[in-house]
């Protein structure tokens, strides 16, 4: 039993790390721009496709492919922000409609360009195994956990120690005051979207080799990431991290006790409970009159 729990902890930490990447992006966009980006799932997905493209057609190096994928996603993020989301700040229903439009375009565009069948991307980190006792994991499991941990630390340092990061925090706390102290909000919005999309792309590029790369791969993780940022607290970065990891681990552990066809139900039930009992999340700030 102990081995089972340990095995699921590692698996949960791995999937949780992927959720963290998505959740971080979504919480940054929400915190700074009050935009809920439902299209984050397809951005995750094209991160995987781009990584596949770069890996097989440009450079045979997996790390470089991931980096190029992240850069491409950052550029796409800047375009999307400028063209679509900047004007929709604080207009939630239209954000939903725009996100849905994006999902339709990108998902079906990918099907047109790459075909509907799934792509495989076997890197060396996926073929090599790590044995712990009688369990075995791929190297990629730990690569994902390590990379996300590094990303979290980098993001923290960026937000706390750099001018741009501080500008982002300022804009999320009080947009008008940020303008007063000389911060250009548009630039902050662009950077936020760029970072968020790069993180999502990294998620797809990291998960793709482990499983498969296919047009619907981001749909599930997006819902889990959305649950994560709500459970963690809508504007809170630590909340997104704890929420993402938590959901990943709880999801995995729950399969030891509950039939797997109810695994998603467990996550959504927790989400509903959280919303009923503590809507501002674990780390969110309770604003009077908001709930």
């Amino acid at each position: 039993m102990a081995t089972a729990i340990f095995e699921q902890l590692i698996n949960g930490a791995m999937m949780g790390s992927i959720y963290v990447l998505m959740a971080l992006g979504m919480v940054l966009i929400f915190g700074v721009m009050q935009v809920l980006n439902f299209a984050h799932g397809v951005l995750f997905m094209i991160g995987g496709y781009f990584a596949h493209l770069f890996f097989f057609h440009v450079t045979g190096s997996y790390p470089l492919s991931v980096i190029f994928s992240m850069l491409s996603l950052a550029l796409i993020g800047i375009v999307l922000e400028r063209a679509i989301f900047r004007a929709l700040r604080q207009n939630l229903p239209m954000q939903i409609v725009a996100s849905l439009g994006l999902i339709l375009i990108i998902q079906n565009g990918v099907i047109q360009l790459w075909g509907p069948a799934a792509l495989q991307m076997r890197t060396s980190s996926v073929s090599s195994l790590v044995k712990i006792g009688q369990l075995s994991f791929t190297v990629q499991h730990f690569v994902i956990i390590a990379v996300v941990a590094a990303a979290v630390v980098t993001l923290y340092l960026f937000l706390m120690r750099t001018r741009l990061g501080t500008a982002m925090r300022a804009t999320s706390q009080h947009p008008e005051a940020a303008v007063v102290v000389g911060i250009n909000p548009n630039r902050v919005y662009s950077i936020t979207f760029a970072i968020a999309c790069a993180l999502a792309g990294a998620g797809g590029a990291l998960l793709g080799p482990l499983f498969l790369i296919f047009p619907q791969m981001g749909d599930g993780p997006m819902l889990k990431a959305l649950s994560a940022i709500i459970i963690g607290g809508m504007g809170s970065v630590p909340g997104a991290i704890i929420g993402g990891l938590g959901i990943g681990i709880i999801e995995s552990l729950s399969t030891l006790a509950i039939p797997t066809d109810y695994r998603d139900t467990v996550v959504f039930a927790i989400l509903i409970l959280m919303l009923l009992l503590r809507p501002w999340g674990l780390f969110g700030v309770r604003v009077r009159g908001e709930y």
Partner: protein
Amino acid sequence: MRKLVLSAVCAVALIAPAAYAQEIVTIGIVTAQTGPLAAPGKFQMNGFNLAVDQINKDGGFDIAGKKYKLALKVYDTHCSASEGAAAMQRLASVDQVSIVLGELCSPVVSAEAPLAQDEKVPLIITVPTAPDLTEQNNPYLFRINAHNGQLTKALVDYIRSVDAEPLAFIAWNNDAGRGGVNSVKALLPKDFKTGYVGYFNVGEVDFSSHITNIRNSGAKAVMLLMDEEPGALAIRQIRDAGLNVQFIGTLAMGSNRFLKALNAKYLDGMVQYSAFPPNAPIDRIKKFNENYRNKFHEESHGFAAQSYDAVYVAVEAMKAAGKVSGGAAIRDALSKVTFDGVIGKISFDKKGQASPPVYITQWCNDGTRKVIFPKDMAAGCGAG
């Protein structure tokens, strides 16, 4: 003089096309070409295309001295009941086909079949396995493939003959997977220990939770109710995790393409049911495989064979009915037709269900397969 030449030219112009007249008969196809089930849908479509190509290359088919060639009108129903029904209605009233073939998902058939009856356009399904479909007293619905009950009967006999208790399942959380689990459980004796049943959504490829539970439950055998793509991943992950369970698989897992996605070591000993053993020394199977490989440059698939046969059966029915339109006559002809297809002898019972032979093949340790069921077709390694 001029008048004579003119009338001669007119006469020739009128006769010539009639002599070379080639009518095109359109058959309707419903399948899923996009979405998570696009991969199995492609095999189904390939089977249809291969059959149509061959029939047309041979000059088409012949009814009462007139030659007919085939064309296909294909609609992508995305595994959605409303799209399927709308496609069926369109095929019947707008495209006015006389037969519809295909469909990938059982619940969509439930919506298409009543329309087939209303519009008198026979529907021959080639892949969906829900047993219920042919229990609705619909004289216009025919199924060429074996349904879950028939498929699992053969497997259950095998399961009981080896040491497979407790038996675990990993299945798609859709009609094919859930239906398969229910069918197997229904056929196993009450005291047979079934252990862990794990479901996953189409598109999910992380089997770690299932692996933990399988290990925990001490399962000796694992039944995989899914198609090739996730199947290869599941087997790889399970073997990589150090579990040496007996695998029991489905249709597509007895192919060389599947072997290429894995390796002989992972597959050794695995057992799966099959619509036809790809290497069986039966002429019609060899020819089918050859033609499939020539056209599509890859190994064939059971769904393709089932769909290929369906086209031929449709043509046979039209020939027997003596007409290419008029659903009621074609339906009557279908109910009486017998045809020797790639998947075996095809004829439909009173409920419209065919009973093609279900084979069970087993992987040997060198990457070849042997046929272990039906007993009278048993063959050694290399012939499966």
